[in-house]
C-alpha cells in the first residue's frame, strides 16, 4: 500500500496507459482530501502556520482572508467540526455560508456536482465538505476545481482531525520547540492505541495513515466485528491487539472511539460485552496506562466507550483537542486560499 499518493498521480493498471478521467479539472493543490496527500513538509508547515495564526493579534489575523468566501457544505450533522471550521474562517476574516442537506435543494435531489457548481457560481472560493459517502470530496474537487477541505467523508478520512490530534499529542508530550515541525522520527518510540469502532471510523484511518509516517506505532484495538484483521495492512507501523489491557500496557496515547450506531447496518453487537471488554474506565486506565494521554474525537457516549471519570480526568485532553482544532483549521483554510491552482484543463491530463 503506497503511503502517499498525490491526487493527480492516479494508480495505473498498465504502465503504458493513462487511466480514464473524464472530470474537468484536477484536484486543487490547496485541498485537504486525505492525509496521504500531505508530505511531511506540508504537515510541518500546517503545524507552524497553526501556531503563528493562533498567536497573531486578532485584528491582524482578521485581515488575512478578509471577505474571502468559504462555504460549509454539510450533508451530515456535526457540532465540533462545523463550528470549528466556521470560527476558524471567521477569525481569518472570511465570510462563511452554511449549506446543510436538510433545508437546501439537496433535499430536492440536487447532485453534489451541481451543488458545488452553484456554490462556486455564488462566489465560494473554498468548500468544506462533510458527507456520508466515502470519497465524496474527490468528486467535489474534480467537478468544481476549488480547494476542498474534507471535514469527514463516510468511513474514509477526517484529515483535519488527524492533524489536530497530532498537535494535541505534540503539545502535551513534547517540548515547545518540537511542536511546529515534524520529521519521520518525530514520534519515534510513541505508541498510540486507537480503540473501538475502527471499521466505521474515518478518524482512525486518518490517524493510522499519518502518525506512523512520523515514527509512531499505532495499535488498533477492538472486536472482530468492528475491526477486520485486514485493517493492520492499511500501512506500515499499524498492528492489531484484540485485548484492550494488553494494548493499554504499551500505550502512551489512547484514542477512544464512539460506536457508530448509524453505520452498523445490520451488524449486531452485544453492548454489555463490549463495555466489559473495551470501555476505558478509571480502574483500567490507572492499572494499565496511568500516564497515558486520553483522546476522543467526539461525540463521546459517556458510560459506553468511556466513563466520565476518565473523560473529565487529568489524563484527558478531549477539550484541548477541540481547542487545537480551530488553529489547525485556520491553517488549512489559509493554505487552501493562498495556494494557487495549477493549470489544469482536461487536455493537460491526457497523454
Amino acid at each position, binding site marked *: *500500500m503506497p503511503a502517499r499518493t498525490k*491526487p493527480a498521480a*492516479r*494508480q495505473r*493498471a*498498465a504502465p*503504458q*496507459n*493513462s*487511466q*480514464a*478521467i*473524464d*472530470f474537468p479539472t484536477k*484536484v486543487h493543490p490547496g485541498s485537504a*482530501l486525505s492525509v496521504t496527500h500531505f508530505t511531511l513538509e506540508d504537515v510541518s508547515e500546517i503545524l507552524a502556520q497553526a501556531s503563528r495564526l493562533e498567536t497573531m493579534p486578532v485584528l491582524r489575523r482578521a485581515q488575512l482572508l478578509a471577505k474571502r468566501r468559504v462555504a460549509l457544505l454539510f450533508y451530515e450533522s456535526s457540532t465540533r467540526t462545523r463550528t470549528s471550521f466556521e470560527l476558524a474562517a471567521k477569525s481569518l476574516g472570511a465570510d462563511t455560508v452554511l449549506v446543510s442537506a436538510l433545508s437546501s435543494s439537496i433535499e430536492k435531489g440536487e*447532485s*453534489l*456536482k451541481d451543488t458545488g457548481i452553484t456554490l462556486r457560481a455564488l462566489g465560494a472560493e473554498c468548500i468544506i465538505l462533510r*458527507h456520508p*459517502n*466515502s*470519497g*465524496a470530496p*474527490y*468528486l467535489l474537487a474534480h*467537478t468544481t476545481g476549488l480547494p476542498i477541505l474534507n471535514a469527514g*467523508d*463516510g*468511513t*474514509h*478520512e477526517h484529515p483535519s482531525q488527524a492533524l489536530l490530534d497530532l498537535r494535541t499529542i505534540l503539545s502535551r508530550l513534547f517540548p515547545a520547540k518540537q511542536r511546529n515541525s515534524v520529521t519521520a522520527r518525530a514520534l519515534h518510540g510513541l505508541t498510540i492505541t486507537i480503540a473501538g469502532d475502527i*471499521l466505521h471510523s*474515518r478518524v482512525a*484511518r486518518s490517524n493510522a*495513515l499519518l502518525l506512523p509516517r512520523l515514527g509512531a506505532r499505532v495499535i488498533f484495538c477492538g472486536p472482530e466485528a468492528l475491526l*477486520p484483521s*485486514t*485493517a493492520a*495492512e*492499511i500501512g506500515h507501523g499499524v498492528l492489531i491487539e484484540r485485548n484492550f489491557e494488553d494494548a493499554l500496557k504499551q500505550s502512551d496515547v489512547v484514542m477512544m472511539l464512539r460506536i457508530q450506531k448509524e453505520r452498523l*447496518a*445490520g451488524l449486531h453487537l452485544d453492548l454489555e460485552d463490549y463495555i466489559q471488554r473495551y470501555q476505558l474506565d478509571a480502574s483500567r486506565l490507572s492499572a494499565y496506562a496511568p500516564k497515558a494521554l486520553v483522546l476522543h474525537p467526539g461525540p463521546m457516549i459517556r458510560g459506553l466507550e468511556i466513563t466520565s471519570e476518565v473523560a473529565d480526568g487529568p489524563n484527558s485532553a478531549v477539550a484541548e483537542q477541540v481547542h487545537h482544532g480551530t488553529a489547525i483549521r485556520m491553517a488549512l483554510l489559509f493554505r487552501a486560499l493562498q495556494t494557487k491552482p495549477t493549470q489544469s484543463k482536461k487536455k493537460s491530463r*491526457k*497523454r
Partner: protein
Amino acid sequence: MTTILIRGGHLVDPSIGVDEKRDLLLRDDRVAAVDLPAKLDALAKKERATIVDARGMTVAPGLIDMHVHLREPGQGYKETIATGTRAAAAGGFTSVCAMPNTLPVNDSPEITRWMQSPERDAVVRVFPIAAATRGSMGEALTEYGALKAAGAVAFSDDGKPILQDAIMYESLAAASRVGLPVIQHAEDTRLTQNASMNAGVLSFRLGLRGMPAEAESGIVERDIELLSRLGKSSGHLHVAHLSTAKALDAVRRAKRSGLHVTCEVAPHHFALTEQAIGDYDTHAKMSPPLRSSEDRAALIEGLLDGTVDAIATDHAPHAIHEKEQEFERAPNGITGLETALGISLLVLHRQHRMPLTRLLALLSSGPAKVLQLKHRGSLSVGSFADVVVFRVAEQWKFLMSDSKSKSKNTPFDGWTLPGRVLLTISEGRIVHDARAVSSKR
C-alpha cells in the same frame, strides 16, 4: 446476389483449426468458399465480387459477445439496440447476447421478439437472453419453451442472482428440458449489502463496504451442487462474469467431474485490479467488482488452461450524470464492446503469450458453443458471413469520445491497444469499415 472476396489475408478460424493464408468468398449472408490464396479469384471475377485486400491482416470469424446490456426497452438514454450494435460492430462483434434487465424486464416472448425486430435497426445479430424468473424477481419461472421459440438463447436474471435453492433447481431443470443454459450472476446479495467494491484492505482503507470473494464462489458452489442433483446427462449452468480464483476453482472441479458447467470472464477483470479505483473512479465500479491481483492472475491462468469458455464484456452503458456521482451511489458497470479485442490482445496475447487461435476461440467459437449458436463463430463453408478483419500489430488509441456507444463510461479511455478492427462484416454486410483511418494505408 452480393459477393465479397477477402483476399490475401491470414485466416484464423479456431472452429476448424485453420491458421494460415486463405482467401474467403462470402455470398449473400453465408460463407461460400475458403481456399488457398488466389484460388478464388476467377470465381470472384465471375460473380463481380467486391474485393477486400486483406494483405497483412488477420481474418477471423466475427466476434460473439454473450453478455451485453443494450438497455432497450426502457432506458434508451443509456443505449439503444441501434447504438449498442454499432459499438459492437466497431469492436469486431457480429453477434451480441442481450441481457434481460431492461425496463420492463425481458421475461416474455413479446419483448424477446420486439428486441429482434428490424425496427430496432440493429447492425449485428442480437440474441436475447430471457429472464429466468418473472420480472427477475427470483420467485416464479418464466415460460422457457415459448421464450426459446421467440428466439431466446439462454435464461438469466443477470444483475440479480437466483438465490432460492428451489427456484434455481427448477430453473436448471426447466432450461434443460428446452436444451438451453441458465446463466447465473453469482452474487450472494446477503453478503454484499451496500458494498461497492472488492472486500479487502483497499476497501477498508477507502472506507467502502466490500464484496467478499465468497459471495461469488458460494453461489457458484451451490449452483454446481444443484446441477449435480439433476444428473450428469442433463442441465447446463453457465457462470457469468466470473471474477474470483475461488469461483474459478469450483468451475474447474465441476468440469473435471463431468458436469456441464461453463463460464465467461470479462476483459476488465483480467486487465485491471481493484487498484484501478484510485481516487474513487466510478469507471472502475462494476459488479462483480475489480478484484485482487491474485484473482486477476487466476483468471488469466483459467483463460490459458481452457477452464474459461468465453470472454464476454458485460457491456453496461450508463449516462454521464449517473456515473458522475459519489462512488457508493454510482451504478455498476462499464462499456466494453469496442475495447474487448484490443484489451484481450494486449493482456492475453502480448503479455501472456496466448496463441491467437485460442484468444479468438474465446471470442467466437467458444461463446457459440456455450450457447449452441448454429453457423456462428466459424468460417467454414455454409456458416454465416460474419467476419472481422484486423491487424494484430497495429496500435491504436481508444478514445471514449470516438465511441459509437451512447454512453462513455469506460476505464480504458486513452489506452493504446493492439489490433485495430479494420472491417466488420455481419451476415454479408459491411457494418464497420476503418480501413481509411488505418495508419498503414
